[in-house]
Every structure is written in structure tokens, then in C-alpha cells.
């Protein structure tokens, strides 16, 4: 069952964000800050893909492409045309949204495998374009000289300043995402992902909602792209190819499709794992492959699902006997915010 979103969820997110804001002072060096920034960007990518996969049941293997379109549009505007990244950002979001709409409209009439294949095909085309539109993108060697964000004349290119920018941007995005899920729109999405015909007969314009969530999730990926481009000052096509898209899908599954906190865990794995494996040298790939298989075997519902089970067990232990109400009913106050 999709975990209920309640006031508690918002509060938990708020507390987490306050804790994260303290990272620059807790972290022993900038390496951790950079890791934090990377985690935030990955969180945005995985949470938005989770919205698509977990809450509306669509498989997309094009998420890497949208990440790339956001990065390249904002990056090219900044590097080649001297446009301020603050303007590049909304332009990139809108451009990605338009592309997602154009791709989504015919594609989202397809189901299951066909949708996966079409999105894979689209990602492949995007990869070719990233490489071949050399005059803009810089070709296979990538785009360089991407300017950083500036605020009141100050460049936000230090690890610390960018960390705060990412923290705020991703924080806002996640709140918007939560809002969307806990609303009439979110409910319609969840309905169409579990019983499409039923949803349709209840008045949900299924096709329109599928496109909506596809576009929204693509725009979040584009936001991640912008953050990445202007922090890294360099982007290249391999960061956005179908392997990346596939890995993102794997991370959503590992975190637990449709579990809100699953995305946080998935992003953690995606960020930390390469760092941990690096120290193993040649064995890196082998350990990764075997670990992946093991996790998939032992956590069929992903980490988020395991977490849910754990919480349910704890709640079950805490309740005072058979007459007690399930915890979810208690968490809801006057019934207005569950």
C-alpha cells in the first residue's frame, strides 16, 4: 500500500532538511559536502522517476534524456550565449516540458513493454543528438565553460554555497511533489495506476493525467540537470545515456517503487555506492553486480518496502492490544490532512 502522506510526512521532511542544513558545519571536509550535493541532485532524479513509476505505474527509460536536455539547454545558453543561469533555468524547464509533452502524447497510449521501448528509443535518439549537434553541445567531448549561478554578484560555485542552493531547490521541489501526491491529482494518479478502467469510469481522463505526470517528472529531471550543469561547469553525453536511465529505474526499484522515503534510500545508494566500490579497484564491478542481485532477492519490495514492514511491526508492538486502532487513524488529526 502506498504509505499515507500526512502532516507527519511534511514534518519529517522539514526536520531532515534542518539537519541537512547543518552538514557544512558537521562535515570534516568538502568531500562530504560535494557528496551531499550529489545526493540531493540524485534524490530529485529518483523521486521524480518514482512519481512516474511508483505512483502512476509508467515505466520510463528516458529519464536520463530529460536530465540531459535540462543540463544542455541551460548549459548551452550559459556557455555559448552568456545567458544568466537564472534565466536558463526556466527556459530549460519549459523546453524539457515541451519535449516531454511531444514524446508523451503518442507514447503514453502504449502499455508496459511498449512504453519502455519507446522511451528507450527516445533516449537513444537524444543521446545521438547530444553527440552530433556539436556546434551547440560540444560533441562527444562535452560542453565546457558552463557558468555558475550568481546571487547579488557573488558566484555560487564554492562547495558550500552550491550545497545550500541545491538544498533549497530540491527542498522546494520535494514539497511540490508531496503536495501533488496528497491532492485530487495525486489520488487520480494512484487510481489510474491500480485500476485504469475503474479510474476512467470515475471521470479520470487517464491519458491526460499520464501525460501530466510524465511532463512534471521530466521537468524535475531537468531541474536536476540545471543544478548539475552549473555546479560541474562541464557536461558530456555519457551522463545521460540509456545506461543512466536504466540505473535510475533500478534505483527506484531498490528504494521501493511507490514508497515516498524509498527515493531517499535509492538516492543514497546511487550516490554512495560508487564511492564505496572505488576502493575495491578491479573487483568494483563484480561486487556491484552481486550486491544488486542480492538486494533484489532479499528486498523484493525495495528498501522502502522493508522500511514500511519494519514500521508496521514497530507500530504493531506499540499498540496496546487487539482493541487499539491502527496507527494511521491516530496520526490523522481532524481528518483534514491525511
Amino acid at each position, binding site marked *: 500500500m502506498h504509505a499515507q502522506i500526512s502532516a507527519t510526512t511534511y514534518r519529517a521532511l522539514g526536520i531532515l532538511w534542518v539537519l541537512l542544513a547543518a552538514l557544512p558545519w558537521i562535515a570534516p571536509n568538502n568531500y562530504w559536502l560535494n557528496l551531499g550535493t550529489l545526493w540531493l541532485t540524485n534524490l530529485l532524479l529518483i523521486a521524480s522517476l518514482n512519481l512516474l513509476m511508483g505512483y502512476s505505474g509508467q515505466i520510463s527509460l528516458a529519464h536520463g534524456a530529460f536530465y540531459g536536455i535540462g543540463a544542455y539547454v541551460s548549459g548551452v545558453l550559459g556557455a555559448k550565449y552568456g545567458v544568466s543561469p537564472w534565466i536558463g533555468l526556466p527556459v530549460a524547464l519549459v523546453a524539457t516540458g515541451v519535449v516531454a509533452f511531444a514524446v508523451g502524447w*503518442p*507514447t503514453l497510449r*502504449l*502499455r508496459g*513493454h*511498449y512504453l*519502455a*521501448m*519507446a522511451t528507450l*528509443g*527516445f533516449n*537513444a*535518439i537524444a543521446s*545521438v*543528438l547530444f*553527440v*552530433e549537434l556539436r556546434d551547440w553541445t560540444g560533441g562527444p567531448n562535452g560542453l565546457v565553460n558552463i557558468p555558475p549561478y550568481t546571487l547579488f554578484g557573488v558566484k555560487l560555485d564554492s562547495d558550500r554555497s552550491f550545497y545550500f542552493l541545491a538544498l533549497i531547490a530540491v527542498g522546494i521541489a520535494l514539497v511540490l511533489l508531496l503536495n501533488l501526491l496528497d491532492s485530487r491529482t495525486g489520488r487520480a494518479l494512484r487510481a489510474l495506476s491500480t485500476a485504469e*478502467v475503474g479510474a476512467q469510469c470515475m471521470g479520470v481522463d487517464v491519458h491526460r493525467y499520464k501525460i501530466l505526470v510524465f511532463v512534471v517528472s521530466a521537468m524535475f529531471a531537468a531541474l536536476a540537470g540545471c543544478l548539475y550543469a552549473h555546479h560541474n561547469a562541464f557536461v558530456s553525453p555519457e551522463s545521460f545515456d*540509456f*545506461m543512466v536511465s*536504466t540505473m535510475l*529505474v*533500478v534505483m527506484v*526499484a531498490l528504494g521501493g517503487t511507490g514508497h515516498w522515503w524509498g527515493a531517499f534510500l535509492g538516492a543514497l545508494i546511487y550516490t554512495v555506492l560508487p564511492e564505496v566500490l572505488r576502493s575495491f579497484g*578491479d*573487483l568494483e*564491478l*563484480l561486487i*556491484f*553486480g*552481486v550486491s*544488486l*542481485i542480492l538486494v*533484489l*532477492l532479499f528486498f*523484493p519490495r525495495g528498501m522502502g518496502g522493508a522500511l514500511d514492514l519494519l514500521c508496521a511491526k514497530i507500530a504493531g508492538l506499540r499498540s496496546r492490544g487487539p482493541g487499539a486502532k491502527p496507527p494511521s487513524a491516530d496520526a490523522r488529526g481532524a481528518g483534514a490532512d491525511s
Partner: protein
Amino acid sequence: MDASLLLQLAFGGIVSGSIYALVALGFNVVFKSTDAINFTQGEWVMAGGMLAAWIHQQFAWPLVMLVPLAVGCIALLGLVSERLSIYPLSRPTPMAITLVTIGIAITTKALVMLTLGKQPMSLPSFSGAESIAIGGASLQPQALWIVGLLLATMLGVHLFFERTLLGKAMKAAAADRDAAALVGINVARTVMWCFVIAAGTGALAGIIITPMTLTSFAAGTVLGFKGFSAAMLGGLGSLRGALAGGLLLGLLESFAAAFISSKYKDAVAFVVLLLLLFFRPSGLLGRAQIQKI
């Protein structure tokens, strides 16, 4: 239009298309029995070629020994992979199996890298390297082996599914797991055999293309991707679709590279795929899926 140029392009397209078709075959066999997409297929192709090349390098054994040995080893690898990773799945949904094959693919790639090294390797051509001239175009003899073995393998797999009891049992299990189980078919076993066949045919494909292209531990990914694209074009799950899709992809790439642009040839293939998906989602030869309300 220069006829010999067209012929040359067609040859090139058919040869690469045959390779894609062989890889696509493996995808379709696994898809038919599990509804899942087997990400390991490309790695098995690579592993077959690498193993054969390595044995040849170390022991200089003749082809007649190399081929069955390498194919057998990789088929065994497929079997072991399935037993260790797919069989224990508590809920073998297509998505779960697909994800696990990603893990197997990475593991396989890593194993090959660790045991056989990172250097590219090759095999000598099966029957010499003298090009044959046909109608103004030239053809390498290895190409004939590729096309010949493709057709033989397709025929073999077809006969297996149509004429043997095990093959028919696998088809039944693919069509309806529960009904097949009820008539006494060990469904989990049929899944295992599918992986064995996919690994074996993949390895065979890898061996016969290695003389024409160097192979290395990283070569599997792209090949798998192309093979999957071919499978999509032809219709997932259809053996004839693998053949049609593979040849179509090969020819599209060949002609697009010549007449449109060699840079955009990959994009052309995918544009065709997208168009096909929008107008004929089941692919060229696949069957449309019907939902009962």
C-alpha cells in the same frame, strides 16, 4: 544508382542484421517464457566470443572443439545464473526478473574481465580471409558463416519449440503458467531451459562474429542494446520477428549511413522504431495483446 554500391550496402546490412537477429533471438526466447527483458543477452554474446578466443589463444584447439566447448560453458553459465538469481525470486514478476538480469549482466561482465583479462581478443576467420566478389561487391567468407549459422540456429530453435516435448512444454508454460503447471509441466524448469538456450545461442553468435570484429569485455553492452532494438522492431517474443527485426535494423543502419548520414544512422533506426510503436505497437510480426475487462 550504382548497383554494386547498393549490393555492397545490402551485404553489409544483411551481415550485421544477422548478428542482431541472433542476439534478438535470445531476447525473444527469454521474453516468451518470462515476459521479462533479459539484459544479460549482450554479455553472453561477448562472453562466448571472449572464451573461444581465449581458449584458442592458450591451447590453439581447432574450431570443431572450440565452438561446442565455449557454447557449452556459456550455456552452463546461463543455467547457473538462472538457478542462483532468478529461481530464488519470491515473486518472479517480469519487472523483478528484468532487474535481476541487470545484476547478472554486470556480474557476468565483471567475471569475464577478471578471468579473461581486459585486452581485446580475436579469432581467425573460419574459412580464410579472402573476400569473395559477387556482382561487383565483395563479401568476406565469415559473413557467409554468420548468415548460414543464423539460419541454422533459427531453424534449430524453431524445430525445438515445435517438435520436441520440452519445447512444447516451454511454449505452454509461456502461454499460461498455471494451466501448464496443472498439466504437470515444471514451469520453473522451463524458465531455466530458456536461459540456457538464450545463453547458448548468444555465445554462438559471439563466436562467429569475433573473427570479423575484435571482442573485449566491454563489447557486450552495445551489442545487447542493438539486439534488443532488433527484437523490438520485429516484435518481442516472436522468433520470426527476431529475424525480421534484425535484418531490418541491419539494413536500415547500412543504408541510412550511406544515404542520410553516418552520424545519425543510429537515430534513424530509433525513429523507425518509434514510428512502428506508434502505429503497430506489437512490432512487425508480433501479436497484439488483448485485455479482457
